[in-house]
């Protein structure tokens, strides 16, 4: 079942805020904030995030997708939508 862009983005943003940026200002996390290169998502949190995307949206990302498509909220939203489209 496909989910619309804004819903995906909000759900992921909400998850990132509560899991990895508690107490931080949600306005500081924009659609283009670098998550991986900027050090917000490390390997542990990426592992958790990928598990979350799997259980929430039923998408399985492969290593290549994990490496290339998780650096911003926009990237994450795009890859989730693309994978849902295929499914």
């Amino acid at each position, binding site marked *: 079942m496909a989910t619309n862009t804004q819903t995906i983005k909000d759900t992921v943003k909400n998850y990132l805020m509560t899991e990895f940026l508690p107490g931080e200002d949600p306005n500081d996390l924009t659609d283009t904030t670098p998550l991986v290169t*900027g*050090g917000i998502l490390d390997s542990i949190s990426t592992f958790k995030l990928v598990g979350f995307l799997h259980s929430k949206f039923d998408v399985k990302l492969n290593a290549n997708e994990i490496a290339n498509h998780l650096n911003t909220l926009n990237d994450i939203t795009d890859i989730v939508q693309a994978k849902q489209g295929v499914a």
Partner: protein
Amino acid sequence: MKSIPLKSDVVVIGGGPSGSTAANALAQAGYDVVLLEKAKHPREVVGESILPFVWKYTDLLGATKALQKMRFMEKSGGTTFWNNQLTQMTFRDFDFQTPALHVERNIFDDILLRTAEQKGARIFEEVIVKDLQLNGYDNQDVFYFDTLNGKSGKISCRYLVDASGQAALVAKKLGFREYDKDLRFMSIWGYFKESDYVALGGDVLPFSQRYETPPTTGIYQIGEWGWCWQIVQNDQVSVGLVLSPEQFSEFKLQDGNLEERFLSACRKVPLLSDMLKYDTLIPGSVRAIRDFAYYPRELAGKGWFLTGDAAAFVDPINSAGVLGGFYTGYMAAMAIDDSLKNNKNRDYAVERFSELLRGRMAVYRLSALPVGVNSYQEMYPYALSCLKQMSDLEKELIYTQMILINRTENLDIIYQLDPDFRRLTSKKYTLLDELHFPASSPVV
């Protein structure tokens, strides 16, 4: 006296950093965890130089305070003498708020094990795992011998973590423990009561000054392939040789017992040889290990995960072994948690865990491998995807380590694989012309 139960959610084999991490994290997540450890901690193990990333894990494990209390030696950075070039790096340049350490591993590991116990893991020491049967998800049998009561027994579990270090029980049992063809080194190490050491800036200082002016970890090249470490701890100095098979053959030909041969090999290491106090070698402290680098065929399967050295070990040169123990132990705990919470996730958890570990290992392997030697071309894509998942800071640190030991060319193939991947760079190192030895004291 507590006795080993017949069943648990998870059994962890081995109580080194990786086993304690997995057991701790799973116990915190509410699972019933049993950890079986052959030795009685504090037990002896090599590997004292610790990168500052570890505090991230000790925070998660609740072990930071207990470790801080021990006041392990804080190191300021690294000094290498490689291809006749002296180079230094310092962790200060990498924004770390927490120090890198030179630890007494017996104490360090003991604290991690006790912390896991406090978090609810059930720890049984002096229990040797003898055999295991992996029967698919939710169904593993572990056979052990309890040396305290002389009895054999069996415990069944849903998930198994093999953290048995170089013993690598699962990989050996399944027949896929394989030497790394490119890293067939031998190591001989020992402990001195004291030695001079190199501080930032290149001053050579006496042991007594280690608290005022912290030491760097010394890495000195030996011939083309070998190298030597010098790690100043609170009450001793760890010195180790890492030798190629050819160098080791030469080593064996020297006269004397292991200690004497170790000392005479140390005398031949440029720079280090001028800092050692040979007569302070602690008797009985010299140890050796060969072929410690393994290449893993598989890292996890239906109901089992390999962590730490039991999964793979590359080369001690980048001081990442203990860090890898934390990382893989924690990842295994998360993968098991995910699997136990939701059955449908379990194959995917095995897949992701294996890919992550393979990637990490590929990166550290590239950072240690002599340039131009790689028998495992299939590792490159994994290295690329792992590098892409690292923060800029992490990449810069690894790259700096590679500069120090002349390994940066190893990345060329990575750049060819993906032209969009930005070349790594670093300015965070300093070339030194020479070390400043203290003017020799006047002869009276």
